[in-house]
Structures are given as C-alpha cells and as structure tokens.
C-alpha cells in the first residue's frame, strides 16, 4: 500500500480514537457531544479512504446531521443548572475495562491470526448505480433488499411517531394520576 495513503489512514485513526476517548471521558456534556461529532466525521473520512463514498456521505448526513443534533437537543432539555455539571464516573468504574479487556485481547488475537486475503481479489469500486440496483431491482435482476427497505421505512416512521409522542409533555395524564 502507498506510504502516504497509510499516513493518511494513521492520522484519521489517531484523531478518531482520541476524539472517541474524549467523548467518553470529558466532564462537560456538550464537549462530549462535540467530540462525538468529530468522531463521526473521522469515521466518514475512513469510509472515504476505503472508497465507499456513498456510505461516507450518508454517514455525515444521518449521524452528523441528525443523530448529533438529537443528542445535543436532549442534553439541552435535560439540564438541571445552566453551568455544565461535574459528571462523575459511576461507582463501578473498573467494571468497564475489566469486562472489555478479554474481548479486546480475543479480537486482537483473532485479527492477528487472519490469513492475508488472496491477491486476486480486486478492490472494488462501489458504484452508486450498483447500490441502487441491489436495493431496488432492475429488469435484469437485483433488488434483493426491497423487503428490508420497506421494513426500515416502517421502523423509521414508527420511531418518529413514537419518539415525538414520548418526548412531548403529558401533563394531562399526570393530573389524572394525582
């Protein structure tokens, strides 16, 4: 692989891991959310480096454009004081690393003992037209993912309606209980 290309991947991965760690360990919630946005952008850059541009742009559109804004709105709607609170770590701080260390070591061993893929596998160019044909179908085949797409559509509609109704204020119901 090209030396400069590897340097680029190294820089992107370094920024990704740093911002992900920052997102999980900072005390100011909004700074966590902004580091999360940076992580998403780095992941999109990795997708671009890997040659799947469509997925990279969809990642920016969906994650940075929608999920991050949802996270930020939730942080703003659930604040107690105006200042960023000091967010402590939970009492079982060591549980996390202790649980993940065996998983991580197993993954590293598994990845390390992977055989090198044969050379004749050509790195593909992911044409957008191919994605479209796979999803929707053509006169000459394809369209294997129509049902999943319909399912995702129904799921997203249900999530939209459910989320909106859950987050809306239900003062009347509380009054009835009291």
């Amino acid at each position: 692989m090209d030396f400069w290309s590897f340097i680029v991947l190294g820089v992107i991965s370094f920024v990704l891991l740093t911002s992900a760690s920052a997102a999980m360990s900072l005390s100011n919630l909004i700074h966590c959310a902004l580091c999360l946005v940076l992580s998403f952008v780095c992941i999109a850059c990795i997708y671009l480096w890997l040659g799947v541009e469509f997925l990279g742009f969809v990642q920016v559109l969906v994650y940075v454009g929608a999920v991050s804004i949802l996270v930020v709105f939730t942080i703003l709607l659930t604040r107690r004081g105006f200042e960023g609170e000091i967010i402590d770590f939970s009492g079982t701080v060591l549980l996390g690393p202790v649980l993940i260390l065996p998983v991580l070591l197993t993954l590293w061993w598994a990845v390390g003992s992977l055989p090198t893929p044969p050379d004749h596998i050509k790195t593909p160019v992911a044409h957008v037209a191919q994605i479209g044909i796979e999803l929707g179908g053509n006169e000459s085949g394809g369209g294997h993912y129509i049902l999943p797409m319909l399912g995702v559509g129904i799921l997203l509609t249900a999530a939209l309606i459910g989320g909106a109704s859950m987050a809306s204020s239900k003062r009347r119901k509380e009054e009835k209980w009291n």
Partner: protein
Amino acid sequence: MELKFCLFISALLFSIGFVGAVTRKNAILVLIGIELMLNAANINFIVFWKYAAPHDAGGLMFPLFSIAVAAAEAAVGLALIIAAYRHFKTTDISQMNRLKG
C-alpha cells in the same frame, strides 16, 4: 495489512464505546457509547467487504441499513431519556432505581 490495521482500529473504537457506556453515569453518555459501538461494527463490515468479499453486496448494504436503524434507535432512546427525566428529575442512571411511577 490494511485489513488488519482497520480491524484493530474498529476493535479499539468498540472497546472505547463499551467502556464509556458501562462506566458513565449519565444516560446520554451511555447512548453515545452505544452509537460508537454501532459505528465500529459498521467499519468492520465495510473493511471485510472491501478486502475479503467484494462480490457480496451484503457487506455494503448491511451498514447502510445499520445507519438508518441506529438513527431510529437513537431517536427513540433520547425520547425515552427525556421522558425518564421528566419523571425522575435527573438523568443519572444510578438514581433511576425505583419502579414507582
């Protein structure tokens, strides 16, 4: 070689997300950790598709659907956090330990 490097990165990202989701007290940070884990799995899919099985379109389709479903899940999860905040008056999950409602 690129395959292994990218898989290492996604494994590290997964573990960072996991540690954050398990250790932090705030419910929103747990969700952020879950999002990072989902993204790490997506990177895995794409890397394996590109370097080991480019003929199978599933390697490209699954992350696409995963992104869509993760967005829906984040929306519902955050709506749940807002609803829970309205009841418990806090987003601290260590204080959400009573079933009285």
